[in-house]
């Protein structure tokens, strides 16, 4: 089964937590992605820019409403996604528990429903 690991955590800038902490975080994510890849379960991995760079679009009364900022203004923001292909939820939870950001945020584990491949939506 395919699962997307959605990494939510409070955003912190380099000024707030220091260069060292940022670098340690990057090293931890590098090692995490390496071990997912080595296990052959990694399908994609993206770490997102801060939500301050986010723009949100809605269609309201026939008009596009474009708003600066993220979809929800919460303390914890979506910071990255990892798509993994593993046998079951328990395996996905094991990987989620090893994500570096579990110690400062939360990892949501969401199963895939369908995927668009070769011009058609297909079961995951």
């Amino acid at each position, binding site marked *: 089964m395919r699962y997307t690991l959605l990494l939510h955590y409070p955003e912190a800038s380099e000024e707030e937590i220091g260069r060292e902490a940022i670098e340690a975080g990057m090293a931890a994510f590098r090692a995490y992605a390496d071990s997912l890849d080595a296990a052959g379960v990694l399908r994609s991995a993206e770490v997102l820019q801060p939500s301050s760079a986010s723009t949100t679009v809605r269609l309201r009364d026939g008009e596009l409403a474009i708003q600066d900022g993220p979809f929800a203004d919460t303390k914890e923001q979506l910071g990255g996604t990892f798509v993994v292909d593993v*046998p079951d*939820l328990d395996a996905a939870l094991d990987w989620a528990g090893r994500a570096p950001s579990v110690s400062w945020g939360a990892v949501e584990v969401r*199963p895939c429903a369908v995927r668009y491949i070769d011009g058609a939506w297909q*079961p995951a």
Partner: protein
Amino acid sequence: MTPAEAVAAAARRSYGRLVAALAAPTRDLALAEDALSFAFQRALETWPRTGVPEQPEGWLLTVGRRRTLDVLRSAATRTAAPLEEADLARTEDPSDPFPDRLLALLFVCAHPAIDAGVRTPLMLQTVLGVEAKAIAAAFAVPAPAMAQRLVRAKRRIRDAGIRFEVPDRDRWADRLPPVLEAVYGAYAIGRAASDLRGEAVHLAALLADLVPDEPEVLGLAALVHLAAAREPDRAPLPLDEQDPATWDRALLDRGEVLLQRAAAFGRPGRFQLEAAIQSAHDARAVTGIVDREAVRRLYAALVRTAPTLGAQVAHAVAAARVDGPDAGLALLDVVEGAERFQPFWAARAALLVDAGRTGEARAAAERAAALTDEPAALARLAALVR
């Protein structure tokens, strides 16, 4: 044995095992239950003509598997969902009772990704085949609400992709306690709803058969047997007021054996302590007396291991039996968060009466009475402060 009796016997013996075996390849418990009831129906129609097969469970499993495939195939023509036919069609030695599948199902029902409140109902339904209506009555919720909860939990197990395997032993420290909690939940519910009491004993015994080498599993089974032996009537009296002649000797004996097996591991725990307390009361059936000092010590150990409100209140009462009401009241004074816990106020009222503090006893009894609508409990409180 008539064919109908053979069907009923197979259901009683193997319901959970068959559901577990049918659900493992698809993780779809609702589908497995439907396929199994189809198989039971088929058996009722077929066995009177053909005779009861040599391996009734194997027969039921084969028919259930075919039914599962049929349902998935007709769904597949609509959604093009892939089928794992090889896994479904795999033949299993019907004499093998696939014990691991059933244990895996218990772990699925008590999976951390499943809401704690629905774990016990899930076990009662999928492992023992108890109807949602009976579970709803025991949990005092409307039947449609309970049915809805069960449907949602099963859908979640399937959609989230929960593993249908027994976790590795090194995970048991985390994964086994919720299983024990859920089985204990069946026992706690069974105490109030006597219709489910037998089911709780069955569930605990089953777990002890599957995991004979974990002392707390055996301790829980011992507890459930010993307690069930003493509650044959619908409105259970306090232990001290019960007539040991009404206790179920066979259940008591099985409970004592389980407790001894648990104790042999030398790793005490909450359920073993609770069972040992039951066992100490049990002695009254033989010797006519209870070793109250032993009971007090066991409760003290229980409060250290699992400081639930119930254990703390029972500890205070046990201490009062040995050292007098003031010792019990002193222990009650340090209990926190018992404002709405009925047994706390009932115990306090009784100990205050014993201490000769009638005015305060009356106030405590009023608070206890306001927290229950059970006629027997209300009558006891009224008699206490009369």
